[in-house]
C-alpha cells in the first residue's frame, strides 16, 4: 500500500461521499421537515443524468447541459410533490412507501419510453478528461471537479438553511408546523420549494456522476437505498449528520473495495480472504448502520424533537 494509491483512493472516496451527500441532503430534508418517505427520490438522480445527456446532445456544451438540467429537475419535483407527495403528508409511512415506490416505477417506465432501455454515455469536454498533479500525486481532473462542485453546493446549502429567511422558515416549519403556519408562513409553498430543492440536488449528483458511469435506468434504485442508510446513520432530518455519514460511507466503501482483501489476508488464509473481502466490503455500510442504530437508535446527530402535529 503506497502513499499514491492511498491518496487516489482518498479522492475517489471523497468524490463518492460528496455525491451521496447531494442525494441524501434532499432526502433528509423531505423526511425531517415534511415527514415524507420518498422512495422516488432516486428517480431524480436518474433523471438528472438523462436530462443532462439529452441537453448535451442538444447544446453540445457540457457545463451548460448540467445547469439547464436543474430547472427541469425542479419542475419535475414540483409536479410530483403536488400529485403524489402532498396528499400523503401526515399519513402513514406505509402509504408513503407504497406511493413513492409506485412513482419510482412510473418514472422508470417513462424514462425507458423516452430514452430506451440502454444507458447513455456522456463525453466530457477535453479539458476535463486529463490528469492533474496535486501534492505530487497524479489525479483525474474530473474527480477533483466533482469534489469542488459538490463542496460548493454543500456550502451554499448551509448558507441557505442557516443564514437566509428561507432557512429560518424551513427550520420553523420543521420544529413546529402549526405555529409556523399561524405566524403566516405559507407551509404548502415552503414544502413544495423544499421538495423541488431536494430533486435538484439529487439530479445534480446524477448529472455529475453520469460522465463516469453513464446514465442508466437502474441508477436510481441503487442510490436511493444507500441514501436512506446515510440519513439513518446521520440522524433523520440532520443535514450535518447526512454530510458526515455520506463521507463516512463513501470512504468506507472505497477503501473497503481497494484494501480489505490485503488487510484480511494478514489474518486469514489467502483464499478465504479473497472470498470474504468483496462480500464484506459490499455490506460494510449496512453493517455500519446496524452498529450505529444499536449504539444510538436515533443516529449520530439526531435533530431536536418535533413539537406539535404535522
Amino acid at each position, binding site marked *: 500500500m503506497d502513499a499514491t494509491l492511498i491518496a487516489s483512493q482518498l479522492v475517489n472516496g471523497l468524490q463518492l461521499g460528496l455525491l451521496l451527500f447531494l442525494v441524501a441532503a434532499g432526502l433528509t430534508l423531505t*423526511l425531517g421537515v415534511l415527514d415524507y*418517505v420518498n*422512495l422516488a427520490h432516486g428517480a431524480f438522480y436518474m433523471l438528472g443524468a438523462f436530462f443532462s445527456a439529452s441537453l448535451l446532445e442538444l447544446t453540445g456544451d457540457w457545463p451548460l447541459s448540467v445547469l439547464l438540467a436543474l430547472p427541469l429537475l425542479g419542475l419535475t419535483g414540483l409536479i410530483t410533490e403536488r400529485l*403524489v407527495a402532498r*396528499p*400523503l403528508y401526515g*399519513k*402513514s*409511512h*406505509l*402509504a*408513503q*412507501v*407504497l*406511493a413513492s*415506490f*409506485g*412513482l*419510482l*416505477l*412510473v*418514472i*422508470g*417506465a*417513462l424514462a*425507458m*419510453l423516452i430514452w430506451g432501455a440502454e444507458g447513455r454515455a456522456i463525453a466530457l469536454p477535453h479539458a476535463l478528461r486529463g490528469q492533474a498533479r496535486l501534492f505530487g500525486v497524479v489525479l483525474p481532473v474530473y474527480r477533483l471537479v466533482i469534489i469542488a462542485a459538490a463542496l460548493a453546493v454543500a456550502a451554499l446549502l448551509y448558507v441557505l438553511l442557516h443564514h437566509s429567511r428561507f432557512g429560518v422558515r424551513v427550520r420553523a416549519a420543521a420544529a413546529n408546523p402549526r405555529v409556523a403556519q399561524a405566524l403566516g408562513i405559507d407551509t404548502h409553498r415552503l414544502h413544495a420549494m423544499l421538495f423541488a430543492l431536494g430533486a435538484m440536488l439529487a439530479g445534480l449528483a446524477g448529472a455529475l456522476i453520469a460522465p463516469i458511469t453513464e446514465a442508466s435506468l437502474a441508477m436510481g*434504485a441503487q442510490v436511493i*437505498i444507500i441514501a*436512506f*442508510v446515510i440519513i*439513518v446513520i446521520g440522524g*433523520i432530518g440532520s443535514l450535518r449528520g447526512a454530510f458526515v455519514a455520506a463521507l463516512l460511507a463513501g470512504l468506507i466503501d472505497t477503501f473497503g473495495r481497494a484494501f480489505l482483501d490485503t488487510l484480511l489476508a494478514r489474518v486469514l488464509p489467502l483464499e478465504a480472504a479473497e*472470498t470474504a473481502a*468483496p*462480500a464484506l466490503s*459490499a*455490506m460494510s455500510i*449496512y*453493517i455500519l*448502520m*446496524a452498529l450505529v*442504530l*444499536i449504539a444510538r*437508535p*436515533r443516529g449520530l446527530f439526531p435533530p431536536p424533537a418535533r413539537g406539535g402535529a404535522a
Partner: protein
Amino acid sequence: MRNWRAGLEIALLAALAAMPVIATVTAQPFWLDVATRLAILALAAAGLNIILGLGGLVSFGHAAFYAIGAYAVAIPAHHALYGGADWLASSNGLFHVALAVAAGALFALVTGALALRTKGLHFIMITLAFGQMVYFLLNALEDYGGDDGLPVDQRSELPLMSLDDPLHLFGLSFALLAVVLAFTWRLKNAPFGLALTASARNARRMRAAGLNVFTVRLAAYVLAGAITALAGALAAEHAAFVSPAMAEWTRAGELMFMVILGGAGRVLGPLTGAAAFVVLEELLSSWTVYWHLPFGLLLIAVALMQARRAA
C-alpha cells in the same frame, strides 16, 4: 363490502384448487404454471402478512427471506450434484425445506432482535438495510454464480412425489399454502395473535397491561421470516433457478403491495393480493414492455386510497 371481499377470496381459493383440472381439460399447462407461481407468491406474502398485517410493523426487507429459502435449496443441491462441501451436500427435499425454514428463522431472530429495538421509520430503514445486506452477500458469492445466479440442475427428492412433475409441485405448494393460511387463521384468534394485533394498536397500553411486546413481536418476525423462506424454497424448485435478484428491495416492495392490496391482516388477503399481482404482471407485461407504468400508477392509487380511508 366485507361479504363481497370474503366471497371473492373463497372463489379464488376454489379456483386455485381446481386449477389442475382446468389446465388438463383445456390442455393448457401454462395455467398450472401460473397457478403454482401464484400459490408460492401468496405463501411468501402470507409470511409478511403476519408481521405487517397483524403486527403492523412495516418490514421492508422481506424479500431477503425469500432468497435465503431459495439458496437453502440451491446450494446443497449444487454440492450434491457437483461435489464439494460434503457436510452441506444433499438432494433430500426434507433436508432442504428444514434448512430453508431454519435459516429464515435464524436470520429473522438475529436481525429482528436488532431491528425491533427501533420503531416507525427506523424500523422500515433497518429492515431494508438487512435485506440489502443479503442481496449484496449473495452477489458476492462467486462460488454460487455471484450476480448471475445459480441453476438448480436437479430438483429436490421427496418421498412419494416428484417435483419435476408440475402437478406434484403445484399440489405441494397449494397444500403448504393452505396449511399456512389455516395456521394464520388459528393464530389470529389465539391469545398470541390478539396480543400481536393489540400491540399494533397501542403498544404502550399493552406494556402497561404486563405484556412483553418485544418478545411477541420477535416471535411474529421469526414466524414471518420462516414462512417466507419456505416460499423461497418452493420458488427455487419451481423456477429451477435462484439469483440475488430475489432479494432485491423492489421485490420486497411487491410483496408489500400484495399484502396491502389483499387487505393487511386478512387471513386470505395474501391470496387475493398475489392473484392481483400475478394477473396484472401476466396481463400487462404481455400487453406492453412498459408494464411498470400502469402497475406503478395502480400502486399510487392504492396508497392514496388507503391513506384516505385511514384519515
